[in-house]
């Protein structure tokens, strides 16, 4: 029972012969918090995209609990939270609708994330990046989700809000037995949060 990436190789088309990822292995257990560190351009976001099915690897496989990722229909058990929440919400949709996109939101989630009810009637341009990121997190926390890939999700937040978000996420991960993949340039943050750190 784990999220496994085996021998993942990937290159964006038109980027020359040199690929982004070359035979990368990664294993994430439920309830585990795996940190992913590495310099810019090393392929951390690309790895997240492969693991959550946004891109297909040129070589290698992604298995979720022993089953290939592509065989899951409907809600994907691996959800990615993007570094830039502005691109992850539809600019023409009210945030309440964006939030309920995958189904009704659990009780108490909005309060825990400090999402004010008035924000639900607004459009994305009327909120800040940090506020939007809370919506993206709430949207991804569906009952069927087992693994959460967090790609620099708090890089744009002030320290107090960062602490708030992470304590919320850790508590949720604990309760739901989520596997968290945490990508960050902040090594202090990774050491504080993660049970294991894998350099890329």
């Amino acid at each position, binding site marked *: 029972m784990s999220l496994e990436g085996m021998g993942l190789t990937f290159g964006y088309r038109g980027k020359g012969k040199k690929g982004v990822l070359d035979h990368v292995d990664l294993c994430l257990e439920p309830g585990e918090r795996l940190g992913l560190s590495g310099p810019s351009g090393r392929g951390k976001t690309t790895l997240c995209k492969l693991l959550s099915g946004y891109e297909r690897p040129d070589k290698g496989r992604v298995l979720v609990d022993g089953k290939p990722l592509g065989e899951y229909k409907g809600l994907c058990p691996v959800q990615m939270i993007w570094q830039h929440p502005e691109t992850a919400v*539809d600019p023409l949709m009210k945030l309440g609708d964006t939030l309920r996109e995958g189904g009704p939101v659990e009780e108490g989630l909005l309060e825990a994330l400090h999402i004010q009810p008035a924000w639900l009637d607004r459009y994305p341009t009327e909120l800040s990046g940090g506020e939007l990121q809370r919506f993206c997190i709430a949207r991804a926390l569906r009952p069927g989700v087992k693994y959460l890939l967090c790609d620099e999700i708090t890089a744009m937040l002030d320290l107090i809000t960062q602490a708030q978000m992470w304590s919320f996420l850790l508590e949720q991960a604990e309760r739901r037995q989520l596997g968290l993949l945490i990508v960050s340039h902040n090594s202090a943050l990774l050491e504080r949060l993660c049970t294991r750190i894998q350099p890329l």
Partner: protein
Amino acid sequence: MRHWNGRRAALALLLLALLVLCAVTAAGCLLGEQAMVTDFSRKNLSPCGAFLFGTDWMGRDMLARTLTGLSLSIRIGLLTAGVSAVLALVLGLASALGGWVDSVVSWCIDLVMGIPHILLVMLISLAFGKGFVGVVAGVALSHWPSLARVIRGEVLQLKGATYVRTAEKLGVSRLQIARRHFLPHLLPQFLTGLVLQFPHAILHEASVTFLGFGLSSEQPAIGVILSESMNYLTTGKWWLAVFPGLSLVLVVVLFAAMGEQLRKLLDPASVHR
């Protein structure tokens, strides 16, 4: 909506333009009979109180003829812009599916855009035997590429957008994605494109008719009025060309203004202002 803001001003302008154009169309329909009446006792009158636009060499009221011609132009514009916008929508959507369909459609877009518009309209109109059918076919079949290209680009962009991909990963069905994400983004583009095709369609209809490849000369079309008045211009009958010409320009400007205001109203960035 408490203040007289940009959106309200745009809406007011849009409605005003729409009202004027509807009035012209209706007036033209009602004056159709009067435009054909010949009366040689009042021929070649310059503009006066009874005949604001003057009369021509057969004593026909130029105001009535101009309004009838404009009305005909607007109705032809409505038909051709509608047909070519739907054509653009279908081809743009098909093109966004990718693969060989995209290659074929893109090639057609490049081909049609590469030929000068007026030449293409003339050729198609000739091929369809001129007259009403020829003009409609010519204008409708030559005006779709620019809108098709916009729609194709928009769909391609949406298909790759993070929020659309995320919706897929959240298990939202394709139909729901089309309704929630694609429709609200495409509809404004389509409507604006549709309205902005009117002025083109009307001008091209008038030009091919003027050049003799369009509507037949017994119809009181603007193009016919203008080309006939050319013979009398040198004898000093300036009003035969000036007023119909100015009215045509006015109608075109009104349509362009309407499209511009509609674009402002439907622009994604201004949706909540």
